[in-house]
């Protein structure tokens, strides 16, 4: 019996620490595992006994790349349980700060972590010598995303200005207007980035995914909507636990998720795009058409184009908000704690990020549950790896490893979030 083992102990260009193991016995694929071994972080446990106002800032520490997802999930859940209504200017500012996070997170992944895969470079620094204009443009786009986070959140990493009920301090109209020129430049530059990434070489790899994401009647989803899928899920956010089930698997410190009665589901840009194409902003839609994308996309390698389309959308949306902004009467609505359970689910760059909190009359947290998008995607990443390796068994171990890492990076996984990262091991016997 011959065994081939492909093993990557620490997968590069992903956030956090994880490993990949592929075992091939007698020329047939025997096992694939995405192993997440970053230690569990017990956020849900230490939230118990804290005040409901502390949840946003505590949970934001789960991730330095997508803190807005945690801030927003927590504030929406707390406002639901406390029955707080949020006025339009505050709602718009929340969408604007989310635009900042999508821009900086998506462009970092596209240009610094993912494009090197397609062009055959080990990293973005090596790529920058040959493609300086792409990298310079991406960095400038990212800087504008950072600037939005700084203006609304106080700083670009772990913003500290988000409050249950609104913000500690809201920007002036003049401060937001000061961003218009940069946002216009960013919109044009992001359309050019979509054009650039759509010219990369993509292998055929369409998969039969169950795509799950938020769906809102009026807009491309960030903070609000119903939980829907292309295979029948259509629930309010409070129904999340009825349809998406978490389970422990021995090779991962992050819980896996599956759709009740079915299997893996896929969250993130491809799911959002394929479900909400009709809600894309006009320039994002035309950029998608020009890039050759249909109204749905089932090829995970093309997620880089879809991320680009979402960057375009984020710039258009940011411009709209900045141009229409009227300063609110007060920076946040007064929130009175009420006993009960609240739910928040928002679209992090990598997909839906779910929060559920139960608080008592004094606002003390009794129970908390948080599900990161990468945790949900673990199962579908393993499935992609199965299908990819099965049809590429003829590749050398070196090539197989390189391409399997790309399969994983298609998801821009944030393992720190899910364990609340990656090694690859291929065993061939």
């Amino acid at each position: 019996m011959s065994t081939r083992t492909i093993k990557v102990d620490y997968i590069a260009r992903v956030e956090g620490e994880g490993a990949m193991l592929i075992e091939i016995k007698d020329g047939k694929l025997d096992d694939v595992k995405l192993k997440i071994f970053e230690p569990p972080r017990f956020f849900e446990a230490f939230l118990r006994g804290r005040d409901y106002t502390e949840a946003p800032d505590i949970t934001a520490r789960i991730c330095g790349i997508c803190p807005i997802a945690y801030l927003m999930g927590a504030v929406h859940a707390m406002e639901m349980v406390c029955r707080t209504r949020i006025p339009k200017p505050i709602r718009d500012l929340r969408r604007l700060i989310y635009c900042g996070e999508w821009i900086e997170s998506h462009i970092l992944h596209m240009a610094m972590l993912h494009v090197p895969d397609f062009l055959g470079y080990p990293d973005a620094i090596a790529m920058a010598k040959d493609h300086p204009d792409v990298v310079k443009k991406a960095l400038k786009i990212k800087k504008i995303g950072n600037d939005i986070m700084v203006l609304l959140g106080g700083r670009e990493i772990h913003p500290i200005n988000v409050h249950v009920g609104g913000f500690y301090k809201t920007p002036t109209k003049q401060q937001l207007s000061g961003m218009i020129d940069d946002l216009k430049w960013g919109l044009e530059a992001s359309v050019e980035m979509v054009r650039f990434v759509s010219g990369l070489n993509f292998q055929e790899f369409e998969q039969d995914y169950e795509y799950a994401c938020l769906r809102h009647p009026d807009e491309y989803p960030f903070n609000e909507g119903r939980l829907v899928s292309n295979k029948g899920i259509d629930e309010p956010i409070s129904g999340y636990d009825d349809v998406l089930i978490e389970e422990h698997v021995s090779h991962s410190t992050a819980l896996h998720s599956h759709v009740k009665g079915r299997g893996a589901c896929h969250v993130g840009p491809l799911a959002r795009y394929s479900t909400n194409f009709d809600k894309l902003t006009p320039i994002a839609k035309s950029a998608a058409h020009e890039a050759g994308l249909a109204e749905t996309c089932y090829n995970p390698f093309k997620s880089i184009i879809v991320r680009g389309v979402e960057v375009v959308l984020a710039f258009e949306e940011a411009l709209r908000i900045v141009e229409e902004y009227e300063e609110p009467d007060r920076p946040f609505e007064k929130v009175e704690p009420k006993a009960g359970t609240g739910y928040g689910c928002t679209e992090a760059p990598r997909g839906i990020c779910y929060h559920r909190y139960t608080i008592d009359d004094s606002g003390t947290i009794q129970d908390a549950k948080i599900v990161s998008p990468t945790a949900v995607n673990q199962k579908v990443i393993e499935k992609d790896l199965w299908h990819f390796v099965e049809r590429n068994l003829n590749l050398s171990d070196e090539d197989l490893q390189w391409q399997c890492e790309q399969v994983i990076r298609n998801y821009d996984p944030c393992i720190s979030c899910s364990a609340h990262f990656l090694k690859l091991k291929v065993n061939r016997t």
Partner: protein
Amino acid sequence: MVIGVGNIFRSDDGIGIVVARSIREKARDLYVFETLGEGASLMAMWTTLDHVIVIDAVRSSSSPGRIHRLDAHKEPIPSEFFNYSTHAFSVAEAVEMSRALGTLPASLVIYGIEGKSFAAGSGLSPEVSGVLDNVADQVLADQRTRTGGQDLTEGHFQEVSDA
């Protein structure tokens, strides 16, 4: 320009910020900035400048409080030196990316101070706070040598947030 990098709420990770504040007190004509160290923002800060000194905490297994001085034009900056995140883009990546793009300042010196604890909480370890004045004096002397005694207020840059 002097840029202090770090997070004062992660123990010794705050040394870059504490040194920057000390330098601001000692030399009020200097541009001194504080930042969390996000790479794209750092590159935007130094891209139009000639003389830049960055101060940050490092973790390289040498003794706490040790002062490392790195000249970006003479040596590559090891990414594990300024341990931050595998995904985020921080000081070492910003220096190496600027080198690849040809946008390094004419002189870029990085002072790395070996930390002992990077745990959550404010306050520096005694071994690290003990070298504060020494680092600040070295940075000021370095700056005077490199600029012929003139201040570092040339160029244009965008202000970033305080850490």
